[in-house]
């Protein structure tokens, strides 16, 4: 194809958009709507998984030591635990701290506790490490590791909670994947639908062009350009919408539900969009491109 024909194709692509305004708007609208919904759920699911991960990493395992274990030995155990890469945080709870926490929860004022036990600390043996992991499904292995360490008397962990969280985590993972996949399929189906219709109603035009002696490439080029433009506009618009909406929602929630902020951190817009932008552009432009290629092919066989 000559350079002048390339220019012609590009100009025709743009002109076609205006000539078939109804279809251009319909196709673009469809892509925008689909990718908007797709992006919306992508954001929701990413945040949801983030929240679960946050909960996951706050489940703690308490490690108690053999009687009269020296502080040095305890420190050593701490160092040993820290080397494991599934460890998220590790905190030392002294017996004093433990007793204070307990009596505070059980008695109203320190005086009452002191009245009951004097200055004896009934939890003198209760120094512990509180450990959180970054993957609750590794808890069972990790507990086994802890129990094998010399000097540890008891490992207190809630298998139930950890198992629940890791089940929830796996479940949400599958579900997110399933939902994103379904949304993707539906988007592709719908977008392809409108593009097919848009080109099919022009089949008589395509037929005429072929009869006049146009090559397939010549007829197709403007349709492909058109498809790419529709795909491009159709992916940029929802991205912009989503960006502002996401910002708005984050700020709204930060203001309205202050308490959530500590429970739950929104994935920052940058992290979110650095994956969402390429995915969305790929889908939009990809469908615009391949959709027009495939659909024109059907009508070019004359």
């Amino acid at each position: 194809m000559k350079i002048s024909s390339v220019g012609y194709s590009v100009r025709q692509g743009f002109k076609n958009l205006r000539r078939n305004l109804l279809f251009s708007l319909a196709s673009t609208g469809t892509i925008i709507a689909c990718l908007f919904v797709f992006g919306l759920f992508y954001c929701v699911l990413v945040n949801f998984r983030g929240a679960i991960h946050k909960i996951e990493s706050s489940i703690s395992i308490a490690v108690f030591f053999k009687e009269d274990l020296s502080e040095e030995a305890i420190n050593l155990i701490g160092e040993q635990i820290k080397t494991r890469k599934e460890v998220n945080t590790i905190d030392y709870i002294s017996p004093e701290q433990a007793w204070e926490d307990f009596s505070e929860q059980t008695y109203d004022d320190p005086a009452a506790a002191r009245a009951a036990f004097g200055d004896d600390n009934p939890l003198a043996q209760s120094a512990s490490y509180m450990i959180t992991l970054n993957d609750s499904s590794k808890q069972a292995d990790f507990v086994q590791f802890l129990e094998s360490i010399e000097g540890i008397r008891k490992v207190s962990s809630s298998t139930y909670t950890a198992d629940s969280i890791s089940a929830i985590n796996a479940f949400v993972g599958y579900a997110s994947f399933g939902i994103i996949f379904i949304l993707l399929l539906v988007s592709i189906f719908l977008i392809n639908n409108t593009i097919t219709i848009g080109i099919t109603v022009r089949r008589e035009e395509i037929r005429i062009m072929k009869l006049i002696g146009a090559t397939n490439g010549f007829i197709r080029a403007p349709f492909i350009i058109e498809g790419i433009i529709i795909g491009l506009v159709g992916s940029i618009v929802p991205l912009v919408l989503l960006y502002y909406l996401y910002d708005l929602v984050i700020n709204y929630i930060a203001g309205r539900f202050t308490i959530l902020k500590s429970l739950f951190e929104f994935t920052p817009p940058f992290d979110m969009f650095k994956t969402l932008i390429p995915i969305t552009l790929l889908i939009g432009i990809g469908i615009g491109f391949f959709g027009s290629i495939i659909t024109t092919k059907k009508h070019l066989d004359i």
Partner: protein
Amino acid sequence: MSVIKMENVTMKYPTGTVALKDVNIEIEKGEFVFVVGSTGSGKTTFIELLLRELVPTKGRIEVAGIDLARLKKNRIHKVRRKIGVVFQNFRLLKDRTVYENVAFAQRVIETPSRYIKRQVPAVLALVGLEDKYKSYPRQLSGGEQQRVALARALVNKPEIILADEPTGNLDPKHSWDVMNLLDEINAKGTTVVVVTHNKEIVNVMKKRVITLKKGVIVSDVQKGGYIDED
């Protein structure tokens, strides 16, 4: 040397209608041929076969020395570019102006823009539509659309012109203008095949006349006249 050649061509539509039956035609380069015949006798089918819009159920077709049956699909445009067609129902691109419709035929063969800008107005003037170049087909009268179709067929100065009823929507004067134009072009060496119902024109022009009746050639005479059906 024959530019159009049909050997034992039969065209049976999927509906069962046999539109052409064992047709043998040879048209020499530079000839002017009228194809006449009652309505439904297969004239448009004949044109569509030459364009390879239709593929015959039987027989061999050769256009400009190319055997259409042997032609690969992605080579069909090679033949079509040698032909300028006026379709019976015009087949204009309805979302483009008159100018763009005619220019399109030139763009297809990658004519440089500067030629297009010169040749399109010239050919529109030739068919008397210079002041309608901005109109869309739906804004034209029947006869005007027909002349746009003619302009599009002529603009590339093709080897062969196939005109299916090119004066069906024209008054006698314009019909004669069109026929004289085709005659002139033919005089310069272009092969012209005209399908028509215009008895007067056929009788006056004294060209070769091929008469079809229910898909069969019933007469093929040089300097012939219109044969009325009994």
